[in-house]
């Protein structure tokens, strides 16, 4: 068959479209010109969204993927354009988010000669991508595009970079659009082969346990294992706690839910882990923020690790039993072998903790982030897609915004990237146009990517931007208060703009909440506002602290419920 005359750039777009790409976020520039031109000439259905910064574009693709489970593409130019994607790619990589990033590049014969806007983005991104390509031949584009999408979305998902020199995207492509994948070293299908013996060993351990806990992570979400997880928990009567990114895989209103565990998790989840005789992780990587001091974690428990990535097994915690593979498939097999357990006493014991150490806050004494989040959760009946930034507001959102369904909670977990929340919310809203999307951000993080207000206004995405404005880099200030004698260094956000006026300057709607009495009234109006993005600036109390807290690197037993009277040691862990 003779292929119709098309260039590399047109081929790329056709292949991305055939691979299911609906959105492409990006920013133009010289080396990417042929691809931008192809957006006009290739007759593609892919919708291009012009961001205001490449980092914003990557976070949008990330938010889109986290809200829909489908990947988006990113298109940027070479050199500085590609360089600006680093934080976004790293954020996606840390949290196993599928995406394909296409960077324009200098022409091949100039590579390595420090030509204008040449950056070795293939080399720079190596440690933060699942895989990457430097395309040297136009006819390779169909194969590479297909492989990139396949790699990004299968196994443990992740970002894939395609660096595309300008002469390659401009060159004529003679290869057919349909290409064969050629990846002899990549076998994601093995994740669906169940090792029956492993599963039976795990089932036996569960059936013998008296105080079991399920620890559900992002991997369970990525495997769409919610129904199987629920069946397991309900059949066996096992309580479920989740990681930050696991929020929503098990409804948090369920009586077996313990909410989130870890550094700022619920006291009852952390206590359950401390007292459990069996901890089964489904798709979590035993991150340092959930296990604290590794050698004390689950010392008296049988630890089971179910993960799709063999490299996670034993990386942080050496499990007693393991199963490597897709969580949905493994849980389906497991559910055939488990029985109802006698966990009545254990659940009653944990209920005691829920009553003794509930998540709470005082409604008096000024406007509290917790109060606003709590009311927002009620007004949206826990069905908003909540995208957070990073800091105190993020942890309180994790505590007070109950996540009832998978894909409704979007937060930068592994990387903790400030500036993520708002652009991710734009991506989420584009992917889920009929749902309420709230970006919960701090005044610090919002200012890292607020220029995407233009993008949100132009795209008419009705994202609700809830700025929990304490005029501080709150989470860092909290650490300085607790561990550095309250010496405030580099945390005062003096000079913040008037966010309401700022929103209006961008053509967005601005709301203001100054007193607890305003919360319900203003939030109701903001949630109903659908003509585009709106900003809700909340002037919250300046110095408040998130508890419970496990100091970094400390054991879960050392959790503190409120600010101690004594002076605390500096944490041994990093963050």
């Amino acid at each position, binding site marked *: 068959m003779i292929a119709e005359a098309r260039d590399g750039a047109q081929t790329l777009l056709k292949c991305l479209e055939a691979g299911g790409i609906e959105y492409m976020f990006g920013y133009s520039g010289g080396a990417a010109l042929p691809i931008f031109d192809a957006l006009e000439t290739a007759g593609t259905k892919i919708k291009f969204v012009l961001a205001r910064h490449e980092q914003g574009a990557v976070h949008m693709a990330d938010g889109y993927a986290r809200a829909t489970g489908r990947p988006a593409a990113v298109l940027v130019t070479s050199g500085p354009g590609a360089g600006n994607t680093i934080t976004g790619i790293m954020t996606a990589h840390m949290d196993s988010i599928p995406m394909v990033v296409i960077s324009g590049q200098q022409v091949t014969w100039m590579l390595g000669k420090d030509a204008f806007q040449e950056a070795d983005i*293939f*080399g720079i991104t*190596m*440690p933060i991508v*699942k*895989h*990457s390509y*430097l395309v040297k031949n136009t006819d390779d584009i169909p194969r590479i595009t297909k492989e990139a999408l396949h*790699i990004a979305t299968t196994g443990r998902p992740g970002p894939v970079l395609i660096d595309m020199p300008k002469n390659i995207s401009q060159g004529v492509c003679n290869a057919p659009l349909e290409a064969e994948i050629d*990846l*002899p*070293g*990549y076998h994601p299908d093995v994740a669906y082969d169940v090792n029956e013996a492993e599963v039976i060993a795990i089932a036996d351990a569960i059936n013998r346990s008296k105080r079991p806990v399920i620890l559900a992570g992002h991997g369970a979400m990525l495997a769409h294992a919610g129904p199987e997880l629920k069946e397991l928990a309900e059949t066996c009567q096992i309580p479920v706690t989740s990681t930050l990114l696991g929020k929503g895989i098990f409804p948090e209103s369920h009586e077996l839910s313990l909410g989130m565990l870890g550094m700022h998790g619920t006291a009852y989840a952390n206590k359950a882990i401390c007292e459990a005789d069996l901890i089964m992780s489904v798709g979590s990587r035993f991150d340092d923020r959930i296990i604290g001091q590794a050698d004390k974690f689950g010392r008296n428990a049988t630890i089971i690790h179910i993960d799709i*990535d*063999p*490299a996670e*097994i*034993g*990386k942080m915690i050496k499990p007693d039993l393991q199963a490597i593979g897709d969580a949905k498939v493994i849980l389906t097999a497991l559910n055939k072998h488990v029985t109802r357990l006698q966990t009545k006493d254990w659940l009653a014991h944990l209920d005691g903790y829920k009553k003794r150490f509930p998540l709470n806050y005082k409604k008096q004494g000024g406007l509290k982030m917790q109060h606003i989040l709590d009311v927002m959760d009620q007004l949206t009946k826990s069905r908003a897609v909540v995208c957070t930034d990073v800091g105190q507001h993020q942890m309180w959102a994790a505590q007070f915004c109950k996540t009832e369904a998978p894909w409704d909670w979007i937060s930068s977990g592994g990387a903790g990237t400030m500036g993520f929340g708002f652009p991710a919310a734009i991506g989420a809203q584009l992917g889920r146009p009929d749902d309420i999307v709230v970006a919960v951000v701090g005044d610090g993080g919002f200012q890292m990517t607020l220029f995407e207000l233009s993008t949100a206004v132009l795209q008419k995405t009705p994202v609700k931007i809830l700025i929990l404005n304490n005029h501080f880099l709150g989470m860092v200030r909290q650490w300085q208060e607790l561990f550095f004698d309250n010496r405030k260094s580099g945390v005062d956000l003096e000079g913040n703009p008037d966010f309401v006026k700022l929103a209006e300057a961008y053509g967005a709607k601005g709301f203001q909440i100054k007193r607890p009495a305003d919360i319900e009234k203003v939030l109701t109006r903001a949630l109903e506002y659908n003509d585009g993005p709106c900003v809700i600036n909340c002037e919250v109390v300046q110095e408040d602290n998130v508890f419970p807290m496990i100091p970094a690197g400390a054991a879960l037993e050392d959790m503190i419920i409120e600010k101690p009277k004594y002076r605390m040691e500096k944490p041994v862990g990093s963050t």
Partner: protein
Amino acid sequence: MNRTIITTDTPVTTLELAIPEQPLHTLSVLVNNQPGVLARIAQVFARRGYNIESLVVSPAADGRFSRMTIGARGEESGLDQIKAQCNKLIDVIHCYDHTSDDIVSKELALVKISVGPDRRAEALQIGEHYGCKTLDLSQDSLILMVTGDSGKLDAMIDMMSDFGIIELVRTGKVVMTRGSGTT
């Protein structure tokens, strides 16, 4: 422990090793024959603070692939993680640790020693003992080629250091599992 440092081109020195030596692991990595693969593998080691002691890269029997034989020392758990991370790379077909396997292991070294007519016969005789080939002969130097397992090379180099080693090039070891095992 006094140990002869033999991996540089500078004249042979001895130095006190502060930490007890961890066992040397030999990994055999079959990879796609593509640009960037070596950098990806090197990053897996470097990021975790592990030093690659020896590295041999060569085309595999199937021309699509390359074989890397990597010697590295370090804690077992760290190396397990490195192996797992190497195996995870899309360009890696497989990564095996042959440390405790039944393997044949060989290395080759070129050793240029400083020797004049007075002690030349002595040097050649020692060389003969190790099965060396003489590759070059000049008024005041000699290049010997020695092959064998790494221990034999160490011993030969140690003996030759008595004459004065001007330059040393070792290939790093290559290994292959015996019988039906896969390398």
